[in-house]
């Protein structure tokens, strides 16, 4: 990608809103955010301190929004941002931050550092300073429709397998269905069992659902790389498809950043509220279970724990649903010490896993999750994000651990009480 420093600085300046101005004004450089970030705790490198990753944006804020900053600029005493700053900070902005927001939870003055990084990436992306892997993923998402290059043909092939294995019909482009389901590429390619589980659960619960041939991909590379234009284009495709099919709900899959993108950022990206609601698959399954439509049978007594995907739990508010669901099927469920909104990140979200350059660092910081698992001593971990799952599996493989990772939806599907066996 060509570098355009001036454009990057302009875009970075445009990202500074009242929130960011308040955050920089409040920061007292106490460094507590470092203690919450696995990239610091596992490396002891102070450069990985979350607020330090925002140094370019802080300098721009100071120059543009503070008395001393403006004064120094006028006198020629300030040190303006340079292309070298973008080059120097690119690794900190993209490789060592998953935007998991754990740092935001511990900041004593309440700075949402993950939000700031998300905004800073807009400037870096505009300037052309972003990892090649993420650039390519975003290009594929815009041109092919999926960051992993999954086409409609690939999806149809995956669905054909599911139909053959389950004997169920997978509805495509069903006008007026209640729910339109999205998938992440990772699920289609690596975890098609998620699609099969959904089909079986929806059939058992009598859910009216469909998949759109126009928009089935939930992953939003635009948000990960920091390009609101790309992000808006990708959200817009889903919105157009859902609204033309007239569905009441769009289901976000087991993918954290996809959920954040379509649920929380989407309406702001396209500039209007949706004419449908977005629901995370775990919320829907919890609702179906509580209303009696999803009936579960038996349980596993295998000791297992739950890895909270950051964008679904900490940044998404889906905190209790996975626990309620797990409680129905797993008698051996145990919580990690830092569970729920304070769980440690897998280390590969926010595009880090799409960034080949970051692989070594990502595997190193996996030690945080390894320590959590070692403390508990369980050999089964459930999660609800396809990206977390693949990152965790790679970490487990790299550390030669004996831990199995399974998706929550699949676990539920294994305990499905089929309609013919129900008593209602």
């Amino acid at each position, binding site marked *: 990608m060509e570098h355009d420093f001036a454009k990057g600085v302009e875009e970075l300046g445009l990202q500074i809103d009242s*929130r960011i101005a308040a955050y920089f*004004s409040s920061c007292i450089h106490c460094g*507590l955010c470092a203690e919450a970030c696995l990239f610091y705790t596992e490396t002891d490198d102070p450069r990985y301190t979350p607020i330090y990753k925002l140094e370019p944006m802080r300098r721009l804020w100071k120059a543009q929004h503070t008395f001393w900053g403006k004064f120094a600029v006028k006198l020629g005493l300030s040190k303006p941002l340079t292309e070298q700053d973008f080059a120097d900070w690119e690794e900190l902005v993209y490789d060592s931050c998953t935007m998991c927001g754990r740092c935001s939870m*511990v900041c*004593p*003055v*309440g700075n949402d550092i993950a939000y700031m990084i998300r905004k800073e990436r807009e400037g870096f992306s505009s300037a052309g300073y972003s990892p090649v892997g993420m650039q390519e993923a975003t290009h594929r998402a815009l041109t092919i429709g999926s960051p992993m290059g999954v086409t409609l043909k690939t999806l149809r092939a995956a669905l054909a397998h599911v139909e053959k294995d389950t004997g169920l019909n997978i509805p495509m482009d069903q006008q007026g269905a209640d729910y339109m389901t999205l998938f992440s590429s990772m699920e289609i390619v690596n975890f098609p069992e998620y699609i099969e589980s959904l089909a079986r659960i929806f059939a058992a619960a009598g859910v009216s659902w469909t998949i759109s041939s126009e928009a089935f991909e939930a992953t939003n590379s635009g948000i990960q790389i920091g390009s609101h234009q790309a992000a808006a284009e990708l959200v817009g495709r889903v919105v157009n498809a859902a609204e033309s099919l007239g569905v009441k709900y769009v289901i976000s899959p087991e993918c954290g950043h996809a959920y954040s993108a379509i649920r929380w950022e989407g309406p702001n990206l396209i500039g209007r509220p949706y004419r449908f609601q977005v629901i995370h698959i775990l919320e829907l399954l919890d609702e179906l279970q509580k209303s009696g439509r999803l009936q579960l049978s038996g349980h596993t007594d295998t000791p297992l724990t739950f890895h909270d995907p950051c964008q679904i739990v900490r940044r998404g*508010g889906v905190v209790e649903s996975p626990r309620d669901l797990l409680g129905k099927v797993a008698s051996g469920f145990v919580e990690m010490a*830092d569970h729920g*909104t304070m769980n440690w990140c897998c280390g590969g979200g926010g595009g880090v896993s799409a960034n080949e350059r970051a692989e070594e660092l990502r595997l190193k910081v996996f030690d945080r999750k390894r320590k959590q698992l070692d403390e508990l001593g369980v050999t089964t971990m459930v999660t609800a994000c396809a990206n977390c799952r693949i990152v965790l599996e790679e970490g487990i493989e790299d550390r030669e651990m004996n831990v199995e990772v399974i998706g929550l939806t699949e676990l539920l599907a294994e305990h499905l009480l089929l309609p013919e066996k129900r008593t209602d």
Partner: protein
Amino acid sequence: MIGAFIDGPFWYFSLGVFCIGVLFRLFSILRVGLKPDLALPRGSGSSGALRNLFSLFLPRRDVATRGRLTLVAGYLFHLGLFALLFFARPHVDFYAERITGFGWPALPYWGFIISAEIAFIGLLLLWLHRLLHPVTRLLSTADDHIATGLVFLVMLTGCLALAQSFEPLRLLHLFLAELLLIYFPFSSLMHTFTFAFSRSYSGAVMGRKGVNA
């Protein structure tokens, strides 16, 4: 002559700079603007803001262990300073005479001493940590050290002037406090006020998402 200047015009000047500067800083944060959030909320933004404003006074478990020193020192300094600033007898009398027109119960002498010791221990620990720890050393700017240094000098001269029997010490304390007032709006000391904005902004977003931040 200098004493009259410190006690009179310079006091009003520094107080003016402080008040106008603080208001201007707060206004300049608000005027940058914030786009409305169009996502359908799951919870209340206002109650989230209110909750975050107060809940962050209680540290989370992780910070309470890994960041124990910063946390303990931070509480010692802020609580001690708050007690000194608002409940030291000379300050209560000063506010009553110069600002409010009324006073309130003040700390006994021993309470003042304990508050001062707590505040000093906290401030010195924070300053040492800032100088010695790789993270805070990397993050710290000249402003952080100037602000800490000024607060330290104001506290030190305040303690020395406690008996108020030596007029030059009282004037020195007041002069340094006035310098601090002038410096305040241009520095990170502004977190005294802006923390409420930061916590509320973040709390509102989390509240809308249904997260108890």
